[in-house]
Structure formats: C-alpha cells, structure tokens
C-alpha cells in the first residue's frame, strides 16, 4: 500500500499546484472586485443591467452567441482590436463583474461585441439583423434567428414593434412579424453592451 499512497500524493501534489495557481489565487486577487464610483457624475461603473437586458444575456447564452462573438478588447500591443474600433481601451476584470456566465469567447467568426451597444444602438436595426442578417449586413454568414420572432395576423392597426421587412422574408398580406419576449430581451442586452467608459485601471487614452 505504500506505493499506492505515494503515487496518489504525487497526483494530488501536481494537481493542487495548478488549482492554487489558476483557481484560488485569481479568485483571491480579483474575485471580489466592486463597482467603481465615478465621482464626476456619481455613476457606478460598470453600470448595473436592467432586468430585461439581464434576461437577454440568458438568451445570448442559450443560443450559443459566444461561439462566433467575443466580448473582450485586447490591449494595443496584443492585437488589432483597438485599431478595428471595437473599443476605446482594453477591457479589464472589473468590466465583467455582472456577467453570469462570462461571455469572453474564443472565436471571431463575427465581430467583437464588447461595445456593440455603442457602435449600433438602434433597436430596430438589431431586430432586422437578427431576423435576416444578410439584409442589413451584406455577405454575413450569421444564422437567422427568425424563431425568436412570431408571425401574427394584424388585428386593427399594425403593432408598433412589428418588423419592417421587405422581399422574400416579408409576411403574407394581413400578417406581421413581431419580436417575442426573448428577442426583445436579447436586443436590450446587445444595446446595453457599452464599455466605452474609463476605469481607473484602464483609462480611455491608453
């Protein structure tokens, strides 16, 4: 049994080493970050999300948006992110304290979304884009998210949030396309993605 015990001590020792270094130490060092209070305008950064946007982040998770979109801006010396206009500064740990789960991502089949709410804040555009991506972004290979929308018969006046769709995707006369609650939440989340504000550890002029 002596040998077995020693073998297991070895397995344990090598493993605990990385556990301490890559799990526990990061958690102790930056796992308890708080919002930063900007004294100029009395605003907490990063700003808390609205309930609808929070729900939208769950729609973002459920439909696997992270497989094509990152939400991280690397510093200028570590990539082209700033040069492409995807942010005003690199992102830091504090930017993500509200994220559950994290959406850093590992792939850019599509562009980075760290600040998509800053680049494109039109709710109507996002709905149209989710419904039929190639119609507003020619050449896009983003999958259509038509299943987040509902076709319904127009009763009386058309709904105010009905999508303005032309061409082959347009509904039959007498019908309209309206976003489901999931689509509304997702768009609220996308529009809320805006990390252009400066933080003490990551000033904008960096």
């Amino acid at each position, binding site marked *: 049994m002596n*040998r077995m015990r020693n073998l297991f*001590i070895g397995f344990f020792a090598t493993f*605990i080493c990385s556990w301490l270094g890559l799990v526990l130490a990061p958690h102790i060092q930056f796992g308890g970050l708080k919002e930063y209070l900007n004294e100029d305008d009395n605003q907490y950064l990063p700003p808390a999300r609205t309930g609808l946007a929070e729900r939208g982040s769950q729609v973002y998770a459920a439909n696997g948006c992270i497989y094509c979109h990152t939400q991280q801006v690397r510093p200028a010396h570590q990539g082209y992110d700033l040069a492409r206009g995807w942010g005003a500064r690199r992102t830091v740990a504090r930017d993500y304290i509200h994220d559950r789960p994290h959406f850093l991502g590992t792939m850019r089949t599509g562009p980075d979304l760290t600040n998509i709410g800053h680049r494109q804040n039109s709710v109507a555009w996002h709905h149209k884009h989710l419904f039929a991506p190639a119609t507003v972004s020619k050449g896009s290979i983003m999958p259509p998210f038509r299943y987040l929308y509902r076709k319904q018969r127009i009763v009386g006046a058309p709904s105010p949030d009905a999508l303005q769709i032309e061409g082959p995707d347009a509904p039959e006369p007498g019908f309209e396309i309206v976003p489901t609650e999931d689509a509304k939440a997702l768009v609220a989340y996308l529009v809320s993605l805006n990390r252009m504000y400066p933080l003490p550890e990551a000033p904008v002029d960096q």
Partner: protein
Amino acid sequence: MTTAYLILGFSLVAFGAMAVTALVWAARAGQFENFKAGSESIFDSGEPIGEPTDVFPGMKRSLLAGSPTRAMKGPPRP
C-alpha cells in the same frame, strides 16, 4: 494582492517540499533501479518479447510468428 502572493509563495514551498519528498521516496523505494524489469513487465510466457500480437484479419500468422524480424523488416538480406 498580498494574500495572493502569500498563497503563491506558500504553494511553491509546499510543492517544492512535496517534489523533493517524492523524489527521495522514489529513489529509496528502488523506483530508479531496474528499469529493464519494469519495461518488460507487460510481457510473459504467453506473449513473449519478440512476438508481435496484432495483424490484419486474414493475414497469415506464419508471416509473423516465429520470424517477427523478417516480417517487420521485409525479406531477409542476402
């Protein structure tokens, strides 16, 4: 920050100590002796060294059995 460094320092020391202990144990327990016997421990009288144990189905066993080197290296050199 300081706590993190403390933990890192502690884990480095603890880890180093464990590594040294493991090494001393391994040397004492004879893990560094007789490597030949260790590497040969997967062979026995039924599947001895020098005898391949896998060929494509249908291939003649005589191709390999008894003359593994020939089968492995091709026809014997004159």
